[in-house]
């Protein structure tokens, strides 16, 4: 643990030391994380499946669809991304349904760090806090998606994105270190990245910590990684990069929501959750909305506490919105590609 990191902990997260009962070194973290109640995989998946059978109809469905749009981080994370592609994505984010100006905007656009200036420029006056009806810019950083780079590189990556004006940073944890049991290293890196999210004016970009649950493979690991990330200062915990299968699943998201609920019970602090990758249909997204509402409560269904990391989901939601409004299904040519 470097002195810098400890300072970060003292500054932003006294709660962590208090919850852990000591400085976050390997021994303390291991003792704490391995002391958490285990997760029964069969039971967790059963509960998620049961939540998935809720029948959301008419007015509830309409509300859920609009809310889903407002919780989406519209994402493009391709090697082939260009300023033109980002401008197209931003246009879609601002006006998702060309045929319906009443359609809400998405919460944010999510791009690679070097595309942040293009996104901000394209957003113009619409750039800002989704709570005010504006659209944020999120940047993936820390050698996304593998995270295999030195800490210096990760910090530089983060600092650059923030300097370009990113409102949110989506970092990846070092899964190798986590699986090797080097919890303090993972903790330290999150603390340092969080530090790098600070802006000159003292404010800070919101930090989403990607666990890459598909590589952690067990629910016990996912639970421990969720606690670790929150203890280290995550504003959001996020399932996946979208580059590894399986990406977001309902049981995984339910488990992370349970951690967030328990953290709130313990400290009073609200942490966000972002399932990302693999959520393509409205039907699936509504299951997530139900799971959020029944696990942590409806107040979590707002952009600062819940996001969908998705790209193709948006158009399916729009088709469903149109269906509710007109009574009949249109088709893929009645929603725009971004």
């Amino acid at each position, binding site marked *: 643990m470097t002195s810098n990191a400890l300072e970060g902990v003292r500054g932003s997260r006294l709660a962590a030391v208090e919850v852990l009962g000591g400085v976050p070194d390997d021994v303390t973290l291991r003792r704490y994380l391995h002391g958490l*109640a285990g997760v*029964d995989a*069969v*039971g967790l998946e059963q*509960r998620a499946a049961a939540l998935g059978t809720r029948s959301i109809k008419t007015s*509830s469905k309409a*509300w*859920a669809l609009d809310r889903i749009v407002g919780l989406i981080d519209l994402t493009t994370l391709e090697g082939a991304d260009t300023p033109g592609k980002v401008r197209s994505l931003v246009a879609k984010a601002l006006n998702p349904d060309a045929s319906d100006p009443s359609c809400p905007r998405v919460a944010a656009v999510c791009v690679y760090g070097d595309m942040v200036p293009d996104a901000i420029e394209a957003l113009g006056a619409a750039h800002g806090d989704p709570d005010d009806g504006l659209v944020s810019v999120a940047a993936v950083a820390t050698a996304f998606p593998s995270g295999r780079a030195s800490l210096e590189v990760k910090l530089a990556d983060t600092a650059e994105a923030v300097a370009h004006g990113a409102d949110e940073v989506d970092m990846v944890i070092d899964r190798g270190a986590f699986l090797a049991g080097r919890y303090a290293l993972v903790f330290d890196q999150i603390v340092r990245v969080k530090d790098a999210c600070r802006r000159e004016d003292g404010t800070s970009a919101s930090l989403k910590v990607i666990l890459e649950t598909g590589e952690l493979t067990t629910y016990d690991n996912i639970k421990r990684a969720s606690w670790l990330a929150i203890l280290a200062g995550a504003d959001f915990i996020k399932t996946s990069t979208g580059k590894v299968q399986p990406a977001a699943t309902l049981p995984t998201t339910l488990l992370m929501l349970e951690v967030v609920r328990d953290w709130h019970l313990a400290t009073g602090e609200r942490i966000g959750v972002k399932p990302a990758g693999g959520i393509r249909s409205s039907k699936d997204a509504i299951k997530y909305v139900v799971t959020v509402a029944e696990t942590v409560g409806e107040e979590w269904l707002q952009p600062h506490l819940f996001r969908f990391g998705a790209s193709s989901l948006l158009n399916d939601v729009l088709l469903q919105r149109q269906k509710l409004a007109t009574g009949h299904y249109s088709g893929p040519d009645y929603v725009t590609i971004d």
Partner: protein
Amino acid sequence: MSFLEYAPAPESRSILSLRDEYGLFIDGAFRPGTGGGFETISPADESRIATVAAGSDADVDAAVGAARAAYDKTWSRMSGRDRGKYLFRIARIVQERARELAVAESLDNGKPIKESRDVDVPLVAAWFFYYAGWADKLDYAGAGADPRPLGVAAQVIPWNFPLMMLAWKLAPALAAGNTVVLKPAETTPLSALIFAEILQQADLPPGVVNIITGAGATGAALVRHPDVDKVAFTGSTAVGREIARAVAGTDKRLTLELGGKAANIVFDDAPIDQAIEGIVNGIFFNQGHVCCAGSRLLVQESIHDELVDRLKSRLSTLRLGDPLDKNTDIGAINSREQLERIRELSRIGEEEGATRWSAECEIPASGFWFAPTIFTDVQASHRIAREEIFGPVLSVLTFRTPDEAVAKANNTPYGLSTGIWTEKGSRILAIADRLRAGVVWANTFNRFDPSSPFGGYKESGFGREGGRHGLLAYLKSGAQK
């Protein structure tokens, strides 16, 4: 608007085509009963569903006679393979008419449609499929070579899982080559009567299955009938005792599946969130109208307070209301009589000094309802820790060591089921060995499978249903002709 007040999502009743009046299903056809009739109502709003015949002694006699004739002339002579074909056909028709059966079950019983749709009816089909497979393999059932059926089986089933109990009883009896007279419970005859239509649709030979509705007197006449070879009963321990007395001294075979007061044991290293779900599923599934319900929660003292807090907040999310709404978690209590019993025992629990907590929920104006309730500070000597309440009421007790957990779990006249929650596999095996109960669930509760035998110790009855064991209750060795 609150999102969590989900808009109503009722399953449509229009799929049902009910008759106004139902007779008795004897010898392959419906015929009027001679013992008068009674109304079956929906416990959710007390509205009348249909009038059902009450079987008289003469009707019982006719039904047993039809079963005997079918046994002698067709069913016992048919090859196992052909019997299996009928059972497979029945299973498939159950699947085809699953929605209709689920709606009928929820309407008549009061259980939430999500349970009848996702648990009861699928298990009914599974039971018929499973025993259909056994029909031509009876030599391997463990009753010796060339085993023989018993003859005419009299089966009396309860109201908590009307169609599922019917399947548990009928499928092994028919696979083994017996014919059956079945009496569904007085308050829940509807799904059995629709099932009779399925038997007609499947072209089952007349008389192989006869279904006679009625109250206790009809059931008593049936189990006492001299031409019955086998009696199978699921229901209360009190009625089970009466039946045992009635059958004593005859050569009728008997299996009883009676009450329970199951312990659900939660150790301090349990997967806590899943344990909470298991506790909820253990006692609030089917409004607690489950003989194997985990009605006694034994929780390690060190995690008692945290667990109870978590349980209360989880119970606050349960939705009580219209059984036909797809989002309902807790349906209606099956009858006024049962509701009174639950109220009475809950009152006694308070008087004995236990602390009562009920989830806040809006209770509909008509029908029979009881909010999910837990009692803490319950002592082993309290009546609510001893007697079967058969409702959505959980008694929470504590223990300090594994030995104490086992001693408390076994300290009941019943012994149908138990649950163990711990992350330690060796402890599961060690504790399970010492529990005097027919079913031990580990890190789950109220899971059923046709291949798994189910039945009780002590006052929970004897005999096993399900699996190969369930078949043995309907077979005798070939040497015993």
